[in-house]
């Protein structure tokens, strides 16, 4: 029998909450963290709102030795990993180092660090560039630093598929567990709210230029006008279910039960985008029918054409108004590779507490035919949840998480 991959630990660094408890409480309260950019002066840029993590001091959580060699996204990822391992009750030395691996997603790498060193290069000269630039801005740096800090020498990798990457990483972690690795750290954190990262994201032409925090990111609303970028994400401990039981894992949040991924045909081809197939592949992989899914966590692009594509895919599989849909990322903004990972966490917490958090500020447009959970949380038993994420350029991914207590 194929090993079951279960989530036993969670670490969250989100704009509306540092730590799982703070994030979940804020999310159920419908607390948005979208505000004017504070990490640099955004006045001369067309987009000026972001979901920033405030009040995070890396020095409070990490050894001084790690600070000069890490970008902000790596500092957040290392702290989220510490929290996830503590949550799972795993301490250094509990498992052999080759039985633990790391797969994270990344969208931009360490842009803030890279920007600083490139500025040193052109303003002062090559001898002023930090030796740590040799790795601190790489896509794979979070995986590497997590591996080194926690002595995890099993399978390691990094996936780059924008927002879909957070789900692709979770699926890759599940593959490694099925191939015999006992424990994987997986998820994603991005943090590129700096001028260079901002310009790179502006190039997508999908950023909201609204200056009203409650009107800037409105997926599935008639007023949808792009998205608000954000920073943060989540790291999860994924284990072989039997191995987790053997070591006496205190909590099993749920099972990574299904995964599907597709790539869109060229937009001018006239062919259907890949989202519906990604959903169907994930359900088939989990062995579930559409009726078995209690809630869908939408990708929620906030761009009218993209919203129509996603709503059509959901309606094609579940029927019009056929399943509750939500987008808690309306409270944080879009987290790049962190989004899929954070939505998997949110889905697992919905399973645990039988409650679906709301999509804030949105009045759903009738044309989408979605049963969108708005304004306040909706209480309902959640045995299985579907999480969707798309990456810029055509990536579609879907993950099914299932309650650890099948009824």
């Amino acid at each position, binding site marked *: 029998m194929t090993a079951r991959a279960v989530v036993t630990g969670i670490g969250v660094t989100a704009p509306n909450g540092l730590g799982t408890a703070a994030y979940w409480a804020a999310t159920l309260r419908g607390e948005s963290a979208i505000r004017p950019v504070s990490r640099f002066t955004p006045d001369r840029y067309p987009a000026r709102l972001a979901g920033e993590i405030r009040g995070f001091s890396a020095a409070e959580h990490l050894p*001084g030795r790690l600070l*000069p*060699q890490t970008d902000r996204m790596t500092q957040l990822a290392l702290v989220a990993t510490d929290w996830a391992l503590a949550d799972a009750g795993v301490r250094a030395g509990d498992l052999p180092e080759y039985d633990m691996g790391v797969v994270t997603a990344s969208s931009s790498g360490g842009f803030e660090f890279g920007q600083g060193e490139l500025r040193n290069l052109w303003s002062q000269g090559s001898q002023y560039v930090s030796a740590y630039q040799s790795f601190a801005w790489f896509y794979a740096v979070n995986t590497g630093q997590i591996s080194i800090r926690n002595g995890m020498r099993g399978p390691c990798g990094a996936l780059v598929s924008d927002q879909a990457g957070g789900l692709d990483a979770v699926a890759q972690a599940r593959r490694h567990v099925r191939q015999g690795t006992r424990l994987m750290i997986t998820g994603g954190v991005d943090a590129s709210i700096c001028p260079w990262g901002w310009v790179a994201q502006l190039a997508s032409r999908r950023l909201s230029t609204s200056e009203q925090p409650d009107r800037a990111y409105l997926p599935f609303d008639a007023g949808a006008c792009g998205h608000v970028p954000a920073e943060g994400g989540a790291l999860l401990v994924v284990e072989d279910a039997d191995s987790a039981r053997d070591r006496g894992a205190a909590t099993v949040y749920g099972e990574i039960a299904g995964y599907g991924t597709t790539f869109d045909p060229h937009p001018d081809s006239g062919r259907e985008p890949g989202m519906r197939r990604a959903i169907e592949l994930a359900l088939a992989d989990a062995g579930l029918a559409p009726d078995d899914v209690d809630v869908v966590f939408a990708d929620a692009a906030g761009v009218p054409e993209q919203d129509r594509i996603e709503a059509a895919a959901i309606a094609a599989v579940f029927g019009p108004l056929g399943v509750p849909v939500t987008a808690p990322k309306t409270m944080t903004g879009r987290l790049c590779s962190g989004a899929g990972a954070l939505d998997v966490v949110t889905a697992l917490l919905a399973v645990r507490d039988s409650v679906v958090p709301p999509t804030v500020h949105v009045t759903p447009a009738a044309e989408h035919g979605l049963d969108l959970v708005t304004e306040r949380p909706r209480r309902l038993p959640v045995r299985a949840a579907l999480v969707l994420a798309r990456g810029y350029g055509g990536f579609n991914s879907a993950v099914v998480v299932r309650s650890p207590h099948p009824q």
Partner: protein
Amino acid sequence: MADEFTIEDLRRILRAAAGADEGTHLTTDIHDAAFDELGYDSLALLETGSRIEREYGISLDDSTVIEARTPRVLLAAVNARLSIEKRLVK
């Protein structure tokens, strides 16, 4: 140009270049402690060497820096370089 590169200068530059773990080697005599035991790897030494070069206006071979196993060896190498530069200036 500074006359001498001291252990205090090295401590300060190491801390700026590669950080320091609270209380480990800040108060003890580190002259003969190996850099790897102090937690500084070859990259940390490269960054340290590059900061010394910038601050003192000298140039050091990468191998001189990386092959210095202890602060005493690195101090000697930097000070030898400083005295050569000083003679050249005269």
